């Protein structure tokens, strides 16, 4: 009897946060200036989820990872050139907007629908991973709704650490206020884990992993189904990005404590 996990990671692209992001009104609603020109990265919270999933699958025999991504197909294709080299996964692609002006309810419905159609997915072994929120614009509710649609009641929505116990049960540390953790346990899958940071660094690029992944990625992109999640009917009253104030100072050999002190002073000023 198979004992490994079937881990489905929900994660898509966000504009590279290093870029200049400027909200504009477009004929199809709010958007970002030159959005199609902006480089994209895997949503950082989803990236943690993916790396944790790959690590768990790698250390638990008979496990498998799927990455379910909803985004513009061309942009997803470009994103895959980067992340496909990181860890092994099988892609399930949905073609739709991912610019931060989508409706979480519709996104959850599209993701859940795609997960239900995954061939060979054993729902009794399912761990549903994703980010606790999205770096573009998100209320932090999408993963919860995807889980509800799939009938998963064990949900952990700010996960930093997941440990599989000897008896197969799961121990989860969730981030809560005050710099503390909430320790929880459940008997095992199915469960939802929406990750905060995890504990793993970004893996190095592995060309062999990339070549292996690419055999399924291109067919998945070609078969990507359209997903209408564009917040039709929603009215965005106001859109703005946080104000920035920049000061650059180059320092050498300054202790971290001193740098921290200067930053605090700067913030107070």
């Amino acid at each position, binding site marked *: 009897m198979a004992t490994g996990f079937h881990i489905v990671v929900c994660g898509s692209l966000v504009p*590279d946060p*290093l*870029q*200049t992001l400027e909200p504009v009104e477009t004929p199809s609603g709010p958007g970002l200036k*030159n959005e*199609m*020109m*902006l*480089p994209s990265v895997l949503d950082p919270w989803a990236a943690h989820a993916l790396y944790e999933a790959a690590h768990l699958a790698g250390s638990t025999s008979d496990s498998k990872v799927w990455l379910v991504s909803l985004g513009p197909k*061309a942009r997803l*294709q*470009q994103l895959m*050139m*980067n992340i496909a*080299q990181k860890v092994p996964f099988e892609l399930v692609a949905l073609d739709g907007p991912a610019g931060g002006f989508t409706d979480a309810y519709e996104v959850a419905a599209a993701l859940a629908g795609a997960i239900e159609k995954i061939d060979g997915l054993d729902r009794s072994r399912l761990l549903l991973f994703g980010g606790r929120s999205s770096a573009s614009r998100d209320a932090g509710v999408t993963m919860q709704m995807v889980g509800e649609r799939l009938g998963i009641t064990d949900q952990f929505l700010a996960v930093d650490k997941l440990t599989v116990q000897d008896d197969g049960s799961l121990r989860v540390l969730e981030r809560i206020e005050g710099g503390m953790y909430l320790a929880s346990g459940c008997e095992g899958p199915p469960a939802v884990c929406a990750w905060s940071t995890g504990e793993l*660094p*970004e893996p*190095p*690029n*592995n*060309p*062999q992993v*990339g*070549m292996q992944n*690419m055999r399924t990625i*291109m*067919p998945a*992109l*070609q078969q990507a189904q359209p997903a209408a999640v564009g917040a039709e009917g929603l009215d965005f009253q106001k859109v703005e990005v946080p104000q920035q104030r*920049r000061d*650059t100072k*180059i320092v*050498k050999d300054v202790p971290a404590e001193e740098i921290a002190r200067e930053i605090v002073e700067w913030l107070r000023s």
Partner: protein
Amino acid sequence: MASVERQSVEVDIVCVGFGPATGGFLTTLSRAMQDPETQPFLMSKAMPGMPLQVVCYERADDIGFGVSGVVTRARGIRASFPDLEPGEIPNAHEVTDEKLVYLKDPVGASRRPKGVKGLDAAMASLRLLGRSKYQAVELPYIPDFMKKDDGLVLSIGQFNQWVGSLLMSSGMVQIWPGMPVAEPLIEDDTVVGVRLVDQGTDPKGEPTDAYMPGMDVRAALTVVGDGPVGPVGRKLDEHFGMPEDHHQRDWAVGMKVVVDLPEGSPLQPGAVFHTIGYPEPEIFGFLYVYPEGVASLGIFVPSWFDSPVRTSYRYLQHWMMHPYIWRFLEGGTLRSWGAKTLQESGRRGEPYLVGDGFARVGEGSGSTNVLTGSGVDEAWTTGVQLAEGVIELLKEEVPFTRENLEAAYVKRRRESWVEKEGRVAEKARDGFQRGFIAGFIGMGLSGVSKGKINISGPSRRPYERVPSLADYYEGVLAPEEVERVRRETTAAGESLHDALMEAAGWPVIPYDGKLLISHQDALLLGGKVQAPAGYPDHVVFLYPSVCEACETKLCIEICSGEAITPGEGGVPQFDREKCIHCGACFWSCTQPREDDPERTVLEFRAGAGGLHSAEN
């Protein structure tokens, strides 16, 4: 380091670097792989039963990062895409207007030798300058060889992304950004593939706990398109040498910004400006207008600008503030910033184009035309020519030997417009060895006579041209003053040029936080520069004692990202996280190696990271 066990994979064709040349190669090859007529011939030997296995490794973190705005006649590109609509490519537009502009020195600090002063005076005597409050003359004539009025303005970053997207969606080839190639694999003078860089090392290349040796990718054909400072191309040059009388001694660094023009800008999409004369006579400028109120603009600082403190960023800002340019930019906002090296030896810098198991395309193969100021279209075309040759050889089922590649690729190239125009341009810039005026006249003569008449000059290596600080500032700053500035900046760990330029009369740049920003802010706001951890330093000072004794340390002054700074004990220090991989340090180093006068003691290796902007 002890020998380590490396993963190895076998493919049919491995490409190094994803630029226009590799884009042309892969576009042509992938189409043939989908064509029912040619597809049966293009089957894999590495993986029998599968289509040809073609992979491309690109150093930058994404395809399209860290390149430049261009104006191009796009003959080769349009031949590949006959129905090309510029609107399909962000930031592309047909050329609608083209101007060649002479800029006078509005601040009085530009180094203007007698000839240039004469040119200034001649313009003034014609009352041309006097008529313009913008201190510039729009020249009434642009030579035919320079004209791009039937061409396109392009962001090469966006063009590369567009091409890459088409290629990836074909499913025929794999392109992997963020994966630098360390070196070619050479066995018995045959190139059998490439070795990727080691990951999980400390800055010196020593393994850490996360060490992952770079994989060997073995292939019947290695396509080298890694540009002017690519490590694979240069390793091939080291191994095979250069053809007789060929050398790469002429370089330039192009530094540019992409700007949101102020509202109500009179500039129309497709407008092109070429400038000469300022901030120093040797520095050329460009401004290309993209659609939707965006412009790409910048300068070229060449290796024949004989300054021991040449800097691109500071000169770029002075050029932007020239009244003729500033009237367009004032009120605008910087979107992007970057720099890259150009190999300006052209055909004279052409290496061996092919050998057993390898072929070279693009700028690193000497395809750039320095007379017409065109490189992208030529690079693209060499890639197409190689693909056509490769398809021919695969059909004939013959191996990728030097002889076969000569017949299938080099012959095509020799018979093409790239070669014909490259030969016209071969000596076009020799006059600059004698100074700006001689160089300018020489270019004109070469162009008008189609290469029959040229002004020659002694061919000197870049480091043979660099004067001492005292000589350079003679008559402007006293030697004691120069020495004082040098001592103070070294003690402060800063570069010399800012302090010396201000002492020499260049005004302080009035930072506005939007367009005129500090160099470090340009890295962060414009270039979005970063480097992933776990890779070795790719700029290496091979002989610290030589660097310690070096008086000019031009590597520090030219560094586009301020990644090289004065270090303890006099040896420059390198900060990988600021490097934009322009490679200007490599050709600006003033200290030759004892065993090879064509090479210097600064080594520029394969490295990860750099610019994160695709709008350039």
